[in-house]
């Protein structure tokens, strides 16, 4: 996919909840941006798996006139701090800090990828007209956590780790409950992070009045929206929220073994955001 207009990128460190957060801004080279798109990245390994697609999307958006702000949350990516020191509330503060930087009058989108969509609850309370671009949104933090902790069982099943004996028999979930930090798939999760994530849900503020673009991938032919998403969209629509949803065929690039692309998702995202925000 080609870029319409030249773009530029600048990187900096900004003050986050517990230290310096890495921020990458991609914007039009020689024109004022038509608005800001704030990226909220997925959880743990999914952040790595989605890097390429998100980087491509950011450049495409910038070439269509948007200023795209991609900030790694505290303890993630190139930000300072360790993953084990991160907690959910700190991440909410990181995102709220980025939202504060956006001019009140300019159009603003929160681009929530997977668990990044969970920040919509707090951020739409701060800004009622915040638009949402959602990529395969996670709707319940508890499911994100459960699926993530399952990696521990996955390693046992494929024989990468021995069957636990004696004191090690407690599952990661049980150890978190007992107040211990657990390591799963190379990520150390603190009880504070687990508790916060577990409580997080996708639930825009009651008087929310932004627009929502909801995009999912499906391996089924024809592609179908997942049942939980269908219910969540219906609830939003009943509240009078304007939701456009679409399902495109493509690989589950946030969890596939090899890094995968899905051009259809990029194209539909660009098209729908343009339709929702006429120049």
């Amino acid at each position: 996919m080609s870029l319409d207009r030249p773009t530029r990128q600048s990187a900096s460190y900004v003050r986050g909840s517990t230290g310096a957060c890495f921020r990458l801004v991609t914007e039009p080279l020689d024109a004022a941006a038509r608005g800001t798109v704030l990226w909220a990245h997925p959880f743990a390994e999914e952040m790595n798996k989605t890097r390429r697609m998100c980087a491509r999307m950011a450049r495409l958006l910038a070439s269509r006139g948007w200023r795209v702000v991609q900030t790694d949350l505290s303890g993630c990516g190139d930000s300072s701090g360790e993953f084990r020191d991160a907690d959910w509330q700190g991440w909410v503060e990181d995102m709220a800090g980025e939202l504060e930087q956006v001019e009140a009058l300019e159009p603003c989108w929160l681009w929530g990828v997977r668990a990044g969509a969970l920040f919509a609850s707090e951020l739409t309370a701060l800004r009622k007209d915040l638009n949402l671009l959602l990529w395969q949104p996670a709707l319940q933090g508890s499911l994100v956590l459960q699926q993530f902790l399952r990696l521990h069982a996955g390693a046992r099943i494929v024989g990468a780790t021995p069957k636990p004996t004696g004191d090690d028999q407690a599952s990661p979930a049980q150890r978190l409950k007992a107040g211990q930090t657990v390591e799963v798939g190379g990520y150390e999760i603190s009880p504070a992070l687990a508790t916060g994530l577990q409580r997080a849900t996708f639930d825009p503020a009651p008087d929310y009045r932004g627009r929502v673009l909801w995009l999912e991938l499906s391996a089924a032919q024809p592609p179908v929206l997942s049942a939980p998403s269908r219910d969540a969209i219906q609830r939003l629509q009943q509240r009078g929220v304007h939701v456009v949803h679409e399902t495109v065929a493509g690989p589950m690039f946030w969890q596939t073994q090899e890094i995968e692309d899905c051009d259809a998702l990029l194209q539909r995202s660009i098209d729908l955001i343009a339709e929702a925000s006429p120049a």
Partner: protein
Amino acid sequence: MNVENEVIEILRSTLNLPRDRVALSADTALLGSIAELDSMAVVSILTAMEERFGFAIDDDEVEGRTFESVGSLSRFVQDKLGA
């Protein structure tokens, strides 16, 4: 519902095994034979099966043997559906 076909579809989409390159049947060995099947893939398959078949899987129910072959995985699903 043909459980075996559904399981094969899940394996194809999560492990990215196209029809024209990899044939899958009940006898096809999985763990130790298909390189793509690592711990992440096991998690994806379990989660996809929960969504597709509408049951919850307790991690303790699953062992390496469950992922021995397409047939053993299909039997696991059949048992879950019959339970």
